[in-house]
């Protein structure tokens, strides 16, 4: 090759390689439409040996060329943001680590081309996925009720029919009374027997705490009346509690919860109490016909009308010309000529044919005429097949055929096998049967051949007769 020293397009030592991959679902920019959906992932150029050593560290003992490190994952702890030393180009540092030689090339690329440093815990597609497994944020009594062993017949576990009334009992009672009541009412609550004590102690805790943080995110859960007491005070219901839950499938992180609370506050402005003076509310009362207010309203109305009239006046000359045309065209468009088609007579072949006179028209049924069969000659005798009459058998021949000759019957194979048969006897018998069969085969072959020859001969004779003798006048 004459040009071996041709400068390569890219010198491997000064270049950085990447793989073009889809952006990770955990990348917060995955939801961003302006950011490119593919990122450049720097390739790792570790040698085989080093890679295998690394793999063995993680328990992969295969010694082939495959890179098993790509399937390893970081243990997913909460992602932390660690401030970098340089505010400037973080990616540049990454590339420096990757470059093998002492290259000082800082290849400048827009940062959106790379994957984000900060990755969320849960990927974009997994956020809307339904949560499976034990739901720890449910009430323990709910969890108990969902359990298979829950005893619905236990009177302690039944829901009170008038739990709404119980829940709405006046809260002016002292808290001490309430706790006693709570314990008394615990028996009538639909908690599991085991959870009673838990419920009681929980309620006790609620008292000193005042407001609890328990977020009743799923309304409509039938609660014990006692718990309702406390929650009534705490107002954990929001304006949107009764709304559908489809939008709340996305799990709320802190920012979103804050957002929700702010919206709550904002929405309160539109509450019934907050709405200000309604200007167009219905007013009752009567007004004098010639009162000043009415006069003003009328004047306003006339003024408006006057303005409109003025407008028309200036436009009228133009519009005048346009209007009739428009009208006409409009009306023309409206008038649609509906062409009525006369009902045509429908003819078919038979009726048309019946109009022909029989002087010129002689219809006939089309007969099917199959192709006449070609004369086929027999390859052996040369005589056309299916022409000569088939000869039947004479009566004597028939009789003779029906007579069974002794010599025709098999002898050896019909003999019954005696019980006590030695090996030699058995062998002899079998041999005899084989001999018989062999003879019979030979016989059959001879017979077949004889018959064939005979048939041929007879056919020839007949032909000869037909050709030469028949119709000969003597």
């Amino acid at each position, binding site marked *: 090759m004459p040009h071996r020293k041709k400068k390569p*397009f890219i010198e491997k030592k000064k270049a*950085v*390689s*990447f793989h073009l991959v889809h952006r990770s679902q955990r990348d917060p920019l995955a939801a961003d439409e302006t950011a490119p959906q593919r990122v450049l992932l720097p390739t790792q150029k570790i040698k085989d040996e080093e890679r295998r050593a690394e793999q063995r560290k993680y328990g992969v003992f295969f010694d082939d060329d495959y890179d098993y490190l790509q399937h390893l994952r970081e243990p997913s702890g909460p992602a932390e943001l660690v401030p970098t030393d340089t505010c400037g180009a973080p990616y540049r540092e990454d590339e420096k680590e990757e470059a093998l030689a002492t290259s000082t090339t800082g290849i400048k*690329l827009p940062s959106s081309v790379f994957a984000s440093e900060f990755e969320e815990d849960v990927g974009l597609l997994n956020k809307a996925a339904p949560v499976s497994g034990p739901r720890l944020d449910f009430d323990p009594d709910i969890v108990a009720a969902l359990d298979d062993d829950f005893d619905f017949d236990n009177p302690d576990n039944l829901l009170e029919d008038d739990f709404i009334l119980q829940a709405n009992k006046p809260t002016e009672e002292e808290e001490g009374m309430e706790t006693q009541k709570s314990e008394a009412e615990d028996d009538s609550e639909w908690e599991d027997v085991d959870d009673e004590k838990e419920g009681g102690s929980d309620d006790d805790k609620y008292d000193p705490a005042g407001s609890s943080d328990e977020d009743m995110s799923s309304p409509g859960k039938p609660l014990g009346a006692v718990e309702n007491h406390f929650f009534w005070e705490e107002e954990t219901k929001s304006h949107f509690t009764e709304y559908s839950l489809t939008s709340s499938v996305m799990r709320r992180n802190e920012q979103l919860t804050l957002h929700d609370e702010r919206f709550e506050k904002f929405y309160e402005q539109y509450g019934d109490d907050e709405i200000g003076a309604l200007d167009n509310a219905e007013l009752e009362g009567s007004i004098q016909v010639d009162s000043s207010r009415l006069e003003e309203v009328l004047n306003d109305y006339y003024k408006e009308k006057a303005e409109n009239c003025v407008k028309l006046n200036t436009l009228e000359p133009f519009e005048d010309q346009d209007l009739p045309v428009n009208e006409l065209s409009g009306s023309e468009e409206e008038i649609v000529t509906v062409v009525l088609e006369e009902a045509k007579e429908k003819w078919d072949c038979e009726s048309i044919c019946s109009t022909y006179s029989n002087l010129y028209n002689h219809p006939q049924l089309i007969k099917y005429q199959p192709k006449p069969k070609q004369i086929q000659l027999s390859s052996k005798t040369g005589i056309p097949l299916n022409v000569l009459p088939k000869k039947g058998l004479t009566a004597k021949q028939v009789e003779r055929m029906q007579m069974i000759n002794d010599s025709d019957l098999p002898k050896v194979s019909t003999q019954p096998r005696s019980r006590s048969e030695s090996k030699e006897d058995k062998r002899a018998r079998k041999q005899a049967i084989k001999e018989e069969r062999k003879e019979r085969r030979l016989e059959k072959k001879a017979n077949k051949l004889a018959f064939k020859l005979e048939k041929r001969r007879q056919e020839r004779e007949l032909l000869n007769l037909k050709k030469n003798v028949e119709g000969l006048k003597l």
Partner: protein
Amino acid sequence: MAFKDTRKTPVEPEVGIHRIKIILTSRNVKSLEKVCANLIRGAKKNNLKVKGPVRMPTKPLRITTRKTPCGEGSKTWGRFQLRIHKRLIDLHSPSKIDKQITSISIEPGVEAEVTIADA
């Protein structure tokens, strides 16, 4: 007489132009050619210097095995093949347009490796 201008013009332009080598590998030719065509079309639209797709010879990975799961039968052999196609594209592009490279639609089954060097 015209004198040759011996003064060397600056080879490296002021703007940060990178040399980018894209290696595309795939098992099916159609999607590979599609991606190639897209890339080159995009590059030409931006008036970049492109060196057209260099087609490497396709590597067939062959496996020849007996067809039978047991050893019985007439000795029939089945020949299986996996063809790997490889294309190279060279570009000179400034760093701003690099972003567009990442936004080319890549067909599934086509693997792209991008090597970037400073010009």
